C-alpha cells in the first residue's frame, strides 16, 4: 500500500470491520464514541448518535484519538531509574510488573504500618477520583487530592456553598429555554461539545448571548456582544450589577423569600457571641446532621412581628431593621446584602473593571427585565417541601455560565458566590431557562462528607478516619492539630485554606520538599504533569524534585509516576508505571465521582476496551486493585486477608460502599438481573448491559421532579429513596453565609472550639465575609503595579487538552507553538512589532517568546494558549520541535507561593478560602528581546527517549489496517 493510490473514489478498501462503543477521553467531556476498526486498527472515531451527552458530534480532539493511540510518545514498559543517574535525566531500565509491584509493596506496606501520611497520592484530570480517593482512604493517608485545587475549586465551592450545586458536571445553563445567556470567564472549554451544541441551538432560537471576557476567542467569537473586562475584576462587575438590580427593584422577591435565606433575620448585637448568626427559635432535640433545621426567623409584614420561617400565611420583609423582644437588633439578610453592595456602584465598578458604567447598568437592566418580563411557565404540577402545591413551574430565562476565568483568582470564591447570588436574585435556580442541577446535585449546603478533624484520624494500618476530601461546615471540621497546624501535606482544610474542598495539589511538591509541615517518603503522581504545565513556578519545582539533603538523599525520597506518555514529569520518576490509553481499558464515570448526568436525571457511563493494551501497559485502575490487595486494604480483601477482586471490572461489579448497601460505582442495571438502578445488589452482567446500551445509563426523572429540586418534595424524597442524599430537607439558598460567619467569629475569638493561629486571624476576618465582597487579588496587592502593569492569563484552545496533545500528529499541526497575544498599543509603546521576540516578565521570572498583535484582547491584558510549549524532547518530540523552540509556558512567571507578607512566609498563591490556585493573578511587563533572538527562554536539557518507546516517524501516511504492521512512513 505504501505508495499505491486508489482510483475508485467510492468503494471502501477491504478489511475486517468491527464497530465498538466506548467513551472518549481526549478531554474531560466524556462524549460517547463509536469506534470503527479495520483489521484491528482504529479506522474511525465518531460521536455516538445515540449518546445523550454529545448526540453524535465530536470535537477536533476526539476525532484525533487515532493519533493518540499510535503515538510514538507512548510508554510501554515499567521503568526504574538507573542507579546513579539523576532525576530529570530520564535514564531508566525496563523492569517487570512483578518487580514494580514488589518494590511498591515493600515501601508502601512499611509506611502504612509506621506513618501512613508519608505516602501521598496526587492525581491529575483522571476521572476516577472515586477509586483513587477510596484507595487513599483505605490506605489511611490524608495526603490525597486530584487536580481540582489548581483547576476550578472556586467554581465548585463558591456555588455549592451558595446554591448546593455548581456548573459543568453538577449543573449548567438551560439554554434550550433561555432567552439571555451571559458567559463570563469561559474560553473554549468546560465543557466542550455539550456547550457547543447548546450554544448553537440557543443562537438559532433567537437567544441573546453576551460574553464577558478579557479576550474574544472561541465561544466569545459568536457572542452578540463582547464585554472586555480586566482579569480578576469579575467580582466588581457582578457586585455592581447586584447593586443596580436591588436599587431598581429588578429582583425576584417571591423566589428569594421562599427559597433563600434573604428574609431571615441576622443577629446584629455586636457584643454577642452569635453576632452575624441567624436569630433562631429554640427547638427541642435538634437532630444532628448536615441539613437546615429551618428554625430561623422572618419579620412578618402582616403581623409586624417575628415568626418562624415559612410559617403559613406569613410574608417576610426582605429589607428594614427590627428588634426582637429581648432587645436584639436584627436585619433580614437581604437588607445586609443591600448595604454590602451600596458602595459597589456602576461608576465604581467601571474604574475597576474597565467596563463603562452605562454598559454595566444596561447589562443589569437586560438581565432584570428579561427575567421579569419573559417568564416561562411550564404546565408541570409539583409540590414544595412545605406542602404547597404548585400548578406550574415558572422560569426566568436568564442563564449564566462561568469557569476558570472567574475561578482561578485568589478572590474567586467571593466572586463566584456573588455570581451565584446574582443568579438567585434573578430567580433562576433550577428553573427553566436558568441554572439547572444535574444529579446527584443539589446537595446540602455544605454537602455532608467531612475529613477527619484532627491528627487522630491518621493511624498506622488503619483506613483514614474520614473522607480524604470534604466540605467543612464550621471551624471544628478543620483537619488541624491542637495547635491549629495542618495535618495534610498540602495544608488543605487548615486555617490557611479552610474550605479547600479539592485540596492544593499545586503546593504538595514544594511543601514536601521543604518538609513543611513535615517530610514525606513516597509521592505517587498519576497523570499529572507536575514538572511542567500543572506546576506553578515550574523551573523551581523541577529543581525541588531533584534536590537532595545533606546526606545525599532526595528530599522527596521516592517518586512514582503513572502515565501513558513520556511527559516532562516522567523524567523525574524513580518508578514509571505505563498506563493505557482510553481505548484500551475499562473505566467508569461514576455517580460517586463526577458523573455525566443531564438536567432531567442521573446518567453514568463506562469505557470498554476496543483494542488490547500496547506492550506492557496496564490500566492504573488495575495497579490500584493489585496494590490494594497486596497491602491488604479492607475494601480490597476478604476478612481473612485474601484478595477479593480478580481485576478492575470485577471490582466495579461487586464493590459496595458498605456491605449490602446496594450502592456501587455504577448506577445502572443493578440488582441480580439488572432490574434496579441507583441502588441494588451487584449484577454480574452489569458490564454487558452497559455495553449493549451504548456504554451509558440514563434515567429520566418524572417531569414534576425535574425542577426546583432544592425544594421539590417529590424529588427530595426520590433522591433519598435512591440514596442520592441522606435527608429530604429543603436546600435553601445561602444569600448570607452562616458557614463563613462561623469562621469569622472564631477568628474574632468569639467562638468556642478551634481557633486560628494569630497570624491568620486578620486574613480570616477579612475574607470570610458572610456576604460577597470585592478585593484585589492577593498577588496583585503584593506587586509593584507601576513596574508590572499588565495582567497575564492563559486560555485553553479547543483543539488541545492540557499538555496531552503535542504528541498527537494531527492536533499539533493546529497548535505547534504559541504566541503572547498583545494589543498593538503595547508594541507601539515598547518598540516591538507583530511577530517580534519579546520578554514577558513578572516579579518571579521572565520568559522569552513571540508577540502576536491582537485587537481582540483588553489592552491591559496579555495572554497565551496554555500548555502548548513543551520541554525539549518530552512527548517524544524532536530537538527542534516548534513546541520547545517557539512554544513557551507562562507558568515560569507564576509562583506557587506569595511573597512574604503579614500572614507569613510560604503562603500559597491561592484563594484564602478554598486554596484555589491563583493562576490568573500574575502581573507582568513586556519589552523587546535581543535582535538575534530565535527561540524561547527558558530552555531545558533534551529529555531522553525512554526504553520501550517507538522511534519518531519522519513522515507517516496513516491507513487503518496497514499502519502498525506495515508502516506507511519512515522512522527517524
Amino acid at each position, binding site marked *: 500500500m505504501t505508495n499505491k493510490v486508489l482510483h475508485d473514489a*467510492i468503494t471502501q478498501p477491504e478489511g475486517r470491520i468491527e464497530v465498538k462503543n466506548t467513551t472518549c477521553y481526549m478531554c474531560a467531556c466524556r462524549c460517547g464514541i463509536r469506534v470503527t476498526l479495520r483489521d484491528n486498527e482504529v479506522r474511525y472515531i465518531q*460521536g455516538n448518535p445515540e449518546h445523550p451527552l454529545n448526540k453524535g458530534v465530536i470535537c477536533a480532539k476526539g476525532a484525533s484519538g487515532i493519533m493518540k493511540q499510535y503515538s510514538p510518545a507512548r510508554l510501554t514498559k515499567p521503568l526504574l531509574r538507573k542507579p546513579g543517574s539523576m532525576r530529570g535525566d530520564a535514564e531508566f531500565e525496563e523492569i517487570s510488573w512483578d518487580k514494580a509491584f514488589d518494590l511498591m509493596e515493600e515501601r508502601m506496606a512499611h509506611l502504612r504500618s509506621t506513618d501512613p501520611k508519608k505516602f501521598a497520592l496526587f492525581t491529575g484530570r483522571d476521572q476516577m477520583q472515586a477509586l483513587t480517593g477510596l484507595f487513599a482512604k483505605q490506605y489511611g493517608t490524608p495526603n490525597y487530592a486530584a487536580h481540582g485545587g489548581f483547576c476550578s475549586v472556586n467554581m465548585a465551592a463558591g456555588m455549592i456553598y451558595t446554591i448546593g450545586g455548581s456548573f459543568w458536571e453538577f449543573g449548567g445553563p438551560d439554554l434550550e429555554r433561555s432567552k439571555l445567556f451571559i458567559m463570563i470567564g469561559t474560553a473554549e472549554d468546560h465543557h466542550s461539545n455539550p456547550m457547543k451544541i447548546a450554544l448553537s441551538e440557543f443562537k438559532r432560537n433567537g437567544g441573546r448571548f453576551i460574553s464577558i471576557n478579557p479576550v474574544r476567542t472561541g465561544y466569545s467569537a459568536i457572542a452578540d456582544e463582547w464585554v472586555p473586562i480586566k482579569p480578576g475584576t469579575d467580582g466588581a462587575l457582578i457586585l455592581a450589577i447586584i447593586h443596580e438590580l436591588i436599587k431598581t427593584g429588578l429582583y425576584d422577591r417571591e423566589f428569594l423569600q421562599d427559597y433563600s435565606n434573604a428574609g431571615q433575620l441576622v443577629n446584629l448585637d455586636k457584643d454577642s457571641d452569635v453576632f452575624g448568626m441567624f436569630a433562631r427559635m429554640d427547638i427541642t432535640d435538634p437532630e444532628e446532621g448536615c441539613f437546615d433545621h429551618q428554625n430561623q426567623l422572618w419579620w412578618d409584614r402582616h403581623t409586624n412581628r417575628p415568626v418562624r420561617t415559612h410559617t403559613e400565611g406569613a410574608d417576610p420583609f426582605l429589607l428594614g431593621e427590627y428588634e426582637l423582644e429581648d432587645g436584639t437588633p436584627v436585619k433580614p439578610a437581604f437588607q445586609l446584602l443591600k448595604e454590602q453592595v451600596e458602595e459597589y456602584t456602576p461608576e465604581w465598578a467601571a474604574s475597576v473593571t474597565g467596563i463603562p458604567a452605562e454598559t454595566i447598568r444596561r447589562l443589569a437592566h437586560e438581565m432584570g427585565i428579561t427575567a421579569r418580563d419573559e417568564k416561562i411557565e411550564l404546565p408541570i404540577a409539583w409540590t414544595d417541601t412545605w406542602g404547597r402545591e404548585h400548578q406550574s413551574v415558572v422560569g426566568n430565562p436568564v442563564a449564566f455560565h462561568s469557569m476558570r476565568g472567574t475561578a482561578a483568582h485568589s478572590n474567586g470564591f467571593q466572586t463566584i458566590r456573588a455570581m451565584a447570588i446574582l443568579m438567585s436574585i434573578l430567580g433562576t435556580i433550577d428553573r427553566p431557562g436558568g441554572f439547572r442541577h444535574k444529579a446527584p446535585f443539589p446537595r446540602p449546603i455544605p454537602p455532608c462528607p467531612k475529613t477527619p478533624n484532627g491528627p487522630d484520624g491518621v493511624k498506622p494500618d488503619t483506613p483514614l478516619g474520614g473522607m480524604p476530601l470534604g466540605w467543612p461546615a464550621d471551624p471544628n471540621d478543620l483537619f488541624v492539630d491542637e495547635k491549629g497546624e495542618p495535618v495534610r501535606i498540602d495544608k488543605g482544610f487548615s486555617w490557611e485554606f479552610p474550605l479547600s474542598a479539592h485540596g492544593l495539589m499545586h503546593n504538595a511538591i514544594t511543601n514536601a520538599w521543604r518538609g513543611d509541615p513535615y517530610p514525606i517518603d513516597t509521592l505517587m503522581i498519576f497523570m499529572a504533569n507536575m514538572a511542567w504545565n500543572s506546576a506553578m513556578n515550574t523551573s523551581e519545582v523541577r529543581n525541588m524534585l531533584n534536590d537532595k539533603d545533606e546526606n545525599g538523599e532526595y528530599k522527596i525520597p521516592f517518586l512514582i509516576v503513572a502515565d501513558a506518555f513520556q511527559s516532562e514529569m516522567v523524567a523525574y520518576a524513580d518508578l514509571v508505571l505505563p498506563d493505557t490509553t482510553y481505548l484500551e481499558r475499562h473505566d467508569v464515570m461514576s455517580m460517586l465521582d463526577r458523573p455525566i448526568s443531564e438536567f432531567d436525571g442521573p446518567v453514568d457511563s463506562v469505557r470498554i476496551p476496543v483494542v488490547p493494551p500496547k506492550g506492557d501497559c496496564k490500566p492504573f485502575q488495575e495497579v490500584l486493585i493489585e496494590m490494594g490487595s497486596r497491602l491488604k486494604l479492607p475494601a480490597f480483601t476478604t476478612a481473612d486477608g485474601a484478595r477479593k477482586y480478580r481485576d478492575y471490572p470485577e471490582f466495579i461489579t461487586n464493590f459496595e460502599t458498605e456491605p449490602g448497601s446496594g450502592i456501587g460505582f455504577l448506577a445502572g442495571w443493578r440488582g441480580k438481573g439488572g432490574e434496579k438502578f441507583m441502588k441494588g445488589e451487584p449484577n454480574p452482567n452489569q458490564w454487558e448491559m452497559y455495553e449493549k446500551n451504548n456504554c451509558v445509563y440514563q434515567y429520566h426523572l418524572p417531569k414534576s421532579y425535574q425542577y426546583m429540586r432544592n425544594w421539590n418534595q417529590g424529588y427530595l424524597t426520590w433522591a433519598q429513596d435512591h440514596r442520592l442524599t441522606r435527608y429530604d430537607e429543603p436546600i435553601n439558598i445561602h444569600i448570607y453565609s452562616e458557614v463563613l460567619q462561623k469562621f469569622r467569629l472564631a477568628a474574632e475569638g468569639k467562638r468556642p472550639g478551634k481557633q486560628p493561629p494569630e497570624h491568620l486571624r486578620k486574613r480570616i476576618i477579612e475574607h470570610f465575609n458572610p456576604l460577597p465582597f470585592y478585593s484585589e487579588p492577593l498577588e496583585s496587592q503584593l506587586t509593584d503595579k507601576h513596574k508590572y502593569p499588565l495582567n497575564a492569563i492563559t486560555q485553553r484552545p479547543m483543539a488541545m487538552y492540557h499538555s496531552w496533545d503535542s504528541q498527537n500528529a494531527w492536533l499539533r499541526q493546529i497548535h505547534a507553538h504559541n504566541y503572547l497575544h498583545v494589543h498593538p498599543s503595547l508594541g507601539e509603546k515598547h518598540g516591538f512589532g507583530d511577530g517580534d521576540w519579546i520578554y514577558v516578565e513578572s516579579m518571579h521570572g521572565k520568559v522569552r517568546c513571540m508577540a502576536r498583535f491582537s485587537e481582540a484582547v483588553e489592552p491591559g491584558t496579555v495572554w497565551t494558549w496554555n500548555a502548548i510549549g513543551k520541554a525539549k524532547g518530552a512527548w517524544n518530540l524532536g530537538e527542534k520541535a516548534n513546541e520547545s*523552540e517557539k512554544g513557551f509556558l507562562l507558568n515560569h512567571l507564576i509562583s506557587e507561593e506569595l511573597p512574604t507578607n503579614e500572614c507569613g512566609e510560604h503562603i500559597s498563591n491561592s484563594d484564602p478560602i478554598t486554596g484555589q490556585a491563583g493562576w490568573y493573578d500574575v502581573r507582568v511587563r513586556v519589552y523587546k528581546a535581543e535582535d538575534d533572538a530565535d527561540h524561547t527562554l527558558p530552555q531545558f536539557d533534551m529529555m531522553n527517549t525512554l526504553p520501550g518507546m517507538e522511534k519518531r516517524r519522519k513522515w507517516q501516511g*496513516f491507513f487503518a489496517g496497514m499502519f502498525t504492521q506495515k508502516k*506507511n512512513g519512515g522512522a527517524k
Partner: protein
Amino acid sequence: MTQLALIIDLNVCVGCSACVTSCKEWNTSGPAGFMSDDNPYDKDPTGTFFNRVQTYEVGTFPNTETVHFPKSCLHCEEPPCVPVCPTGASYKREEDGIVLVDYDKCIGCKYCTWACPYGAREIDEHQKVMKKCTLCVDRIYDESLPEAERKPACVMSCPTNARLFGDVSDPDSHVSQLIREEGGYQLMPEWGTKPSNHYLPRRKTRVKIHEDELVRVDNPLTKEQKEHHAPIEGITLDDSSFI
C-alpha cells in the same frame, strides 16, 4: 441537475476544528487516503488536510469581531481546476456536481493548484497526486450506513451544526432556503467560478430597553413598606383638636 454542497454558518462556528480532524481521520483510511504528515513529531509539522479553519480579527478594540472561517473545496459550478488539467484527472461529476480527482490520471503537475483561487487543493508529497475534499463521496451514497450518517464526516462531527449539507440547485432544499433567507454568500464571485459552497454571515440579536420598563407598579421594593405603622411620638392634630 443536482449540485451537492456545504453551507457554513459563520454565525455559530466557534472555530473548534472538529471538521479539520474528523475529515482527516475519515479520509486518510478511505479511497482518498492516505493523507500524509511530514515531520509529524519534529520541526514544522505539515500534512494533507482537505479542510482548514482560519481565524481573522475584524475591527479595532473594543469593536472587534473574531471570525472563524472553515475552508475547503467549494465544488464550483465552473471549476477552474478542471479545464487546466492536462490529463483529465480533475473532473466534475455530472450526477451531483462534486469535483474529484482521478488519482490514476493525476501526474501531480499542480496546474490545478495555481488555477484554484481558493487554495483548496493539497498535493500529497508522498503519493505525488493532488488531493482535495470529495464531499465524502464514499459516505454519502453508502447504503450500508444508516441514512442519517450518509453525510460528509465534517458535517457529522460539527458540534455547532455550523456545516449543513444538501443540494443547492434544488430551490426547496433546506440549504437553498438558508442561502435565500439568511444572506448566504459565495466566496469571490467575481472570479466567475460560481462556488457551490456558501457561507452564512454573522447575525446579531439585540434588545432595546425602554425607560419605562424600569418602572413597575409591582416593583418589589414597594412591598418593603410597612403595612401597620407604630404610633408616632408627640402630639398630632388628632390629640389636640378642639372639635
